């Protein structure tokens, strides 16, 4: 029921028109990358790399370019860590990001995924700010069948983190997934609050693996670079969850972030249902682009 014209279709038509490799072909490819939100700078970098590759490997047919450009993008994306680490008791996954990107929903899906891998999961309702945020997470907890630790709306999220860690320890949970309120990265007080929450994990669980996942909406443009940078100053981001890839947006900004800021993607969101979360695969992502 969902129809879309993919970036791949577009590229197909480009490659049909251009049988031979020339400047127009490179321009068209660069345009296609920019339309996927890869950004001017990163798109130029990719095209430069492509030109080198074409020269080195003596490529002469436009068709051969397809494989080459895919490879370059997959390389950028797999250079950084794409694996989720869940060691320690409990392992912690803190989920952060700007407003409305899909943090709470992704937590519900992750809980289901980890549970299906045999892990005991507990959720921490750290968004005490947004209207009905706790209720929303509660629905997910019930849907998946996992415990949730929550305080009143307006409570200190640091206190929720503290209690969540205690409960996770006491109940022998393998993974604590902690929701945080959406916040824009240019708000210093909110970033400081996040820093404080993160410090609590470092202090209370020195031996646990700590995943700090930045959730990015695939529809987002160049601003995601600023998001990754400024959230990264508040907590050590270990990976990205790229949501809403079931739409027509391509999420190309993660190529720019991988290239410039060395952060890998760990999960992709492809819908609103509990099973609509997939482990990220660089090659698949590059394939899907073309």
């Amino acid at each position, binding site marked *: 029921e969902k129809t879309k014209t993919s970036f791949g279709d577009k590229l197909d038509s480009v490659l049909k028109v251009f049988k031979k490799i020339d400047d127009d072909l490179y321009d068209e490819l660069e345009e296609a990358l920019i339309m996927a939100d890869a950004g001017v700078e990163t798109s130029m970098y990719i095209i430069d790399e492509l030109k080198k590759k074409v020269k080195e490997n003596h490529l002469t047919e436009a068709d051969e370019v397809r494989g080459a450009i895919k490879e370059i993008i997959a390389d950028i994306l797999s250079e950084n860590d794409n694996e989720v680490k869940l060691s320690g008791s409990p392992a912690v996954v803190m989920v952060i990001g700007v*407003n*409305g990107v899909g943090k709470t929903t992704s937590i519900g899906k992750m809980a289901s995924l980890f549970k299906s891998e045999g892990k005991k999961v507990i959720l921490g309702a750290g968004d005490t700010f947004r209207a009905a945020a706790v209720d929303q997470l509660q629905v997910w907890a019930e849907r998946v069948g996992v415990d949730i630790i929550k305080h009143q709306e307006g409570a200190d999220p640091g206190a929720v983190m503290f209690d969540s860690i205690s409960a996770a320890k006491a109940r022998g949970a393998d993974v604590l997934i902690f929701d945080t309120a959406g916040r*824009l990265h240019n708000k210093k007080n909110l970033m400081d609050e996040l820093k404080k929450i993160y410090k609590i994990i470092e202090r209370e669980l020195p031996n646990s693996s700590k995943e700090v996942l930045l959730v990015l909406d695939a529809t987002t443009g160049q601003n995601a670079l600023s998001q990754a940078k400024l959230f990264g100053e508040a907590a050590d981001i270990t990976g990205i969850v790229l949501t809403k890839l079931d739409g027509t947006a391509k999420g190309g900004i993660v190529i720019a972030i991988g290239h410039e800021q060395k952060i890998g993607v760990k999960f992709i969101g492809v819908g609103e249902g509990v099973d609509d979360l997939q482990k990220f695969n660089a090659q698949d992502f590059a394939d899907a682009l073309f």
Partner: protein
Amino acid sequence: MAFESLADRLGSVFKKLRGKGKISEADLKEAMKEVKRALLEADVNFKVVKDFINGVSEKALGQNVLESLTPGQQVIKIVNDELCALMGKETAKLDFSRKITVIMMVGLQGAGKTTSSAKIGGFLKKQGKRPILVAADVYRPAAKKQLKVVGEQLGVPVFSIDESTDAVFIAKKALEHASQNANDVVIIDTAGRLHIDEELMEELKNIKSAVEPSEILLTVDAMTGQDAVNVAQSFNKQLDITGVVLTKLDGDTRGGAALSVKAVTGKPIKFAGMGEKLTDLEPFHPDRMASRILGMGDVLTLIDKA
């Protein structure tokens, strides 16, 4: 950011051309390359940028450089004037011509529909209207609860049929409720959906024909990238929207999506969301958006004085 140096980069393009004289075709081409890049970095859609650059180039070619400006500033002035023209000058108003003003809020998931519904309700209440909010998102976990909480915070009543999962039915009943309770504005919060989701777009069409809204406002996140044109075009084609609410402008995005959306739909942006608080809503000022997209407020003030 590379972007902040647009003025500098234009300056170096025009190094040869000092003070007076005409802008030559070669200089202009170089300058437009920089402008194009700046607009792309602000997330203006590629195709929109292309058309825009062509239009501006035509206007700028052969123009005399004003005594008081450098050629770089002159180009920025022309670009800014054209951006302003595209965005429109006037702040667009809501249509209150009917006895009951029905406003339907639509858009992608997480764009800010529920928050903006409440904000608009609060905004209109202050102007002496008697709005109600309608909880017609029957899908998202705790969506109805969210609307009730924000409604209560503002003292704007919320119409909800908790046990119903039929958004069209809820919207119809809300309208009856409004006329019985002398509410003159009905703001319908709908579930977030993808523009390519045919089933859910059908639901919106059904709500539309059931309540005949005066306003269908597409809520768009100001951080949206290149895809903004697909989303806006598709919602507009299927629903014939009357305007746009641009949210999350309190961030540091340049907000090029504003230009893309305006360019492809021709529909005005009516409100700007400026924060999470329920009072953080402003009527949209298109003229300010142009300088934000260009990211050079200072240079523009300088030019204004020239």
